[in-house]
């Protein structure tokens, strides 16, 4: 036997059920002693609280609308926290693999920027004009500017500095028909 829920029994005790629901409830109560006891308990409770028997004038329609809205909100919230179910938003922007892709893209941007900047050494503005050898050449630099003479591909490059503010790079040309000596000057 299926029993009415507690809310329906309470409404019946107060005479608040609609006609068809009340007819079905009375048929059930005629056959179910347990539910009759429940309805009797609700009726006793109402008599213990006289104020409830004659409630003041209230805007029932507005309250009903608010309650329905609250119920819908509660149902929606329940859906959100129910385990094993998809979240409310069907395609969240930054979760799971998408967040990983976004982070990887940002990392790629940073690495690309570093690679593009790699040939340009960190330039200090505090040292004034400096001459020095680099990985594949010699340079004079000052602030964010640099003047470089390169020796790409040259083998056995000999670097030599002059205390007067110069640095040179010498190497034998590929055909050994001469020697190239690059030199940059601080002044």
């Amino acid at each position, binding site marked *: 036997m299926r029993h009415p829920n507690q809310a329906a029994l309470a409404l019946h005790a107060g005479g608040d059920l609609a006609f068809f629901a009340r007819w079905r409830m009375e048929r059930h109560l005629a056959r179910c002693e347990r539910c009759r006891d429940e309805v009797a308990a609700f009726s006793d409770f109402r008599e213990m609280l006289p104020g409830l028997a004659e409630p003041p004038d209230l805007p029932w329609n507005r309250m009903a609308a608010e309650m329905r809205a609250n119920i819908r909100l509660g149902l929606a919230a329940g859906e959100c926290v129910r385990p094993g179910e998809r979240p409310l938003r069907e395609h969240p922007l930054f979760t*799971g*693999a*998408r967040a990983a*892709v*976004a982070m*990887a*893209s940002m990392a790629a941007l940073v690495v*690309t*920027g570093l690679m*593009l*900047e790699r040939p*340009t050494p960190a330039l*200090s503005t505090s*040292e*004034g*004009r*400096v*001459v*020095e050898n680099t990985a594949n*050449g010699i*340079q*004079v*630099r*000052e*602030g*964010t*500017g*640099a*003047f*470089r*003479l*390169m*020796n*790409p591909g040259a083998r*056995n490059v*000999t*670097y*030599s*500095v*002059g*205390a*007067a*503010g*110069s*640095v040179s790079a*010498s190497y*034998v*040309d590929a055909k*050994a*028909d*001469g*020697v*190239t*000596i*690059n*030199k*940059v*000057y*601080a*002044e």
Partner: protein
Amino acid sequence: MRSKRTIPVAAATAAVLLGAAGVWAQETPLPKNSIKFNVDNSPLSLVSASYDQSRSTARGAAMVLDLDIDVTLRNTSPNRIRGITLRVTSQEAFMGGKGSVTRASLNVGQGESFTVPIQMQLVRPTQVSAGPLVQVDLDGVLFQDLSFYGTDRLNSRRYLTACETEAQRDREHFKQILARQGKDGLAQAMRESIDRQKDLPALDVRVRHGNGAAVASAGLASEHEAQFAFLQFPDSPVRPLGGSVRIAGNQASEPEIDVRNTSSKAVRYVEFGWVVSDPAGRQYMAGALPSSDANLYLPPGSQASVRQDSSLKFSANGQPVNVQKMTGFVSQVEFVDGKVWVPNRQSLNNPLLQKVLAPSVEEQRLSVIYRSKGIDALVEDLKKF
């Protein structure tokens, strides 16, 4: 379903990023008038000058100019050319940027052409404006008879003469070996030279000229004055009397050496080689200490001070090299008549110099010929000079 959806998203994101990076680092060819050449009214004629492969690239807030220049020149004089120096300046792109490209150990006869490659890079903070970025001028040409032509703004006469004097010394040395010991002896001498070049310790030196204050460095050790020790060469026209430098960790500042002219001719330029030793006893060739006074005049028997208002900072393999000891030797002297003295081979056989001093550029060239073309090609090359 979900992974299938993320793949196009990732691809699109990557494409956008790469596209942005491409725009950011966009390369553009240089305008036609970016480089100006000037070898007019000289014993050389300009055959061609190309820089088609030169590019400018925006990198962040900086503009990088990669200049790949080939200058082909023809000797229009009756003398054979032994060396040439081109002056490369960039006033506009890098305020006062100045460099030189020298070709030494040449053997270019009348009517013959040769090419001077110039590969340079300019980094400047803003966009390139119109007009020449770089000017290439002839600074000087040295001929077989050691006569010179040029404006000599970079003292290329002295430099080219020193190179050629060293080259003549070393060619003569190897010719004598060939004459006395034959090809086997010459090959053995070349192998020894190649081995010596391999074993030279590399030292990175950063030089800041002017205002002898320190090159910026964290954690400088306390500064102290250190004295030079000297190698004495019997035939040197000048004699070092004493010298000092301020040392702070791996930094040496304001080197100064007193010299006396012991020759019978007036001297106008003196240059010292400078060897440093670290606390572990490793020795390195630190550089050259030239006389700073452009108008130096040192009559026979007189004294002068060779001094530079500069700071040198030493490192090797990315690690600072602290200076424990210093040794100097006279490496070059120019007389007022333009002749240049360099140490002879016997002086350079000093054990310390054999460990740290690179052979002359001519000896390096001869060893490359031996290594790449063999002993017969080397013998033929020695006969050309």
